[in-house]
């Protein structure tokens, strides 16, 4: 039984986040196609429920680590859309001052320790964040997003084990979208479910429908409560699907049109809207209003990005933080 759909505030918030992610990434996709964006990007269209449901279970002062497919996590954790778009457009008002791009957006003030260009790279960092929380006597929780591909990395195994033996307040959220680039998850492991790996570390593991925002939220909320109360980590597997290719070069040679269509029919946003309508929590008009607001917010963000100043060319000044114990700090003679 769904819960978020029963409250107008929750439903509006969930839909606003999911629509904002969708519209933001559609805008990014279109700008790439028109040659307005540089580099590469990884879209999470179709996966909006996992980012939204998981982040909704967190407090503002909890932290996340994200992935190369991180726009959704950023938005769900409260990032400023204008600064995100400015970063994609490589401007000085971007989150990374134009030095990071899509794969490195972070907002430490909102508890987002960063997207990451290295598969599984954020997982040990989330464990370290949770360790800091524990040592500081705080009840903050760290949540690490990663894909099915990351579960083949040593960093995943080392990190989950370390968090387990130290009972660290961390939640591991595997967004299983079935493919690590082109490699099917069924070919990289003998296990049926990624969550089964939890047993190997003596922690709870749960698999949920990653396109059901309620199911993701419920599992994440339980894992967060478990972590916050000092009982250690949980591995949550959210089974989902990316509609778009891995990145802009993907020709979808490893999957069929039928498979993609079958998942498009399980659109997490449309699905939640139906539940909300059925529960009569919000009207059609109210849903349209949420969609329009998301569209307008993304339009404003594109404008903020496009009108942003060019980045500072003084790259050497940005490599090291200023130091009082370094005689050459700030100098060029390194």
């Amino acid at each position, binding site marked *: 039984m769904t819960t978020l759909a029963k409250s107008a505030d929750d439903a509006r918030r969930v839909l606003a986040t999911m629509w904002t992610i969708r519209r933001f990434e559609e805008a990014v996709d279109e700008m790439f196609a028109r040659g307005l964006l540089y580099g590469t990007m990884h879209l999470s269209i179709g996966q909006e429920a996992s980012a939204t449901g998981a982040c909704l279970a967190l407090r503002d002062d909890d*932290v996340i*680590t994200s992935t190369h497919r991180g726009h959704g996590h950023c938005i769900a954790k409260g990032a400023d859309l204008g600064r995100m778009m400015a970063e994609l457009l490589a401007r000085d008002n*971007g*989150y*990374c*001052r*134009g*030095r*990071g791009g899509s794969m*490195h957006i*972070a*907002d*430490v003030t909102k508890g987002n*320790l*960063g997207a*990451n*260009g*290295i598969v599984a*790279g954020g*997982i*040990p*960092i*989330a*464990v*370290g*964040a*949770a*360790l*800091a*929380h524990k*040592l*500081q006597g705080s009840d903050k929780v*760290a949540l690490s997003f990663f894909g099915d591909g990351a579960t083949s990395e*040593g*960093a995943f195994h*080392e*990190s989950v*084990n*370390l968090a387990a*033996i130290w009972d660290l307040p961390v939640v591991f959220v595997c967004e299983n979208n079935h493919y690590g680039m082109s490699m099917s998850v069924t070919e990289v492991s003998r296990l049926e479910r990624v969550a089964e790996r939890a047993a190997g570390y003596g922690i709870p593991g749960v698999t949920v429908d990653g396109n059901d925002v309620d199911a993701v939220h419920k599992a994440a909320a339980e894992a967060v409560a478990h972590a916050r109360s000092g009982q250690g980590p949980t591995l949550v597997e959210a089974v989902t699907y990316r509609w778009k290719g891995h990145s802009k070069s993907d020709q979808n040679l490893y999957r069929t049109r039928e498979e993609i269509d079958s998942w498009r029919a399980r659109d997490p946003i449309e699905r939640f809207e139906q539940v909300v309508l059925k529960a009569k929590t919000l009207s059609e008009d109210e849903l349209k209003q949420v969609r329009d607001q998301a569209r307008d917010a993304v339009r404003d963000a594109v404008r903020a990005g496009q009108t942003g100043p060019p980045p500072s060319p003084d*790259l050497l000044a*940005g*490599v*090291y*933080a*200023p*130091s*009082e*114990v*370094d*005689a*050459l*700090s700030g*100098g060029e*003679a*390194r």
Partner: protein
Amino acid sequence: MTATGTEVETMTFAEAIRAALSHEMEADERVFVLGEDIGIYGGAFGVTTGMLERFGAERIRDTPIAEEAIVGAAVGAAMCGMRPVAEMQFSDFTAHAMDQLVNQAAKVYFMLGGATSVPLVLRLPFGSGTGAAAQHSQSQEAWYAHTPGLKVVMPSNPADAKGLLLAAIRDPNPVVFMEHKLLYRSASGPVPAGADPIQLGVAAVPREGRDLTIVATGIMVSRALAAAEELAESRIEATVVDPRTLKPLDEATILERVRATGRALLVQEAPRTAGFTAEISARIAESDTLYHLLAPVRRLSGLDAPIPYNPDLEKASVPQVPDIVQAARALMEDG
């Protein structure tokens, strides 16, 4: 103990590192230590002996054998307000942790546009001379110095070990702190009491001489000083420069001392090709110091080979005192 550091105490290199760690842990509750066997065992080289009893298991954290998670946890903790000091049992094991060190720690400040930095220290026992062979004996400072975003510190004596580690822990950037294993017990000397850091980026000149300048790093500093004593017997007077920190590098002091003598002998334990002394050589060649040279720059390095097990071969693969003496004499004959 005084805060001015005028009092001194004789201690070994390992004790000096422990003194710096202990001081910072007393003074700053954000500082904690993590690594393999650093608790009851006291670390593979005894550096953290007694610290578990003093600071408890929360702040002296024994870890599983999982170098990537150790460094990654240090990165995450550093980004969330802590000042972790992580120990690799042997510097060679950093190979397991290179993603977190090179792709994460080193790049976060730049890649995130300065939004946050990663104040961590990675302590690395390195170098040959213990019979531990090729996977436990390397000198990999050039790996780290070649990575923008990392600072690289290599003390050669107990006083510098303490003062530089105090600075490394207080620096807001990731610092690779390289400790030659042979120094832990064999190097003993006066160490200032108190907690004055030694600024990073300031070379030391432990000996002045008119004829040639030996720039040596790590354990090669004491060997260069011993060689200089021997050379003095035949009236060859050597200046010895110890950069102390490879990144930042006190280029000014090195170039000034090379200009003053007109001869440069660069000594490192690491293999020759693309080693750190190649960088120093290049800086001499790129500057007007070149016009002051009476002879071409000479480098004395470890062989371009893995460190062997056999004790005679092991010694022969890295510079020893007679090698430095011989290279200095040859340099004098060059011009």
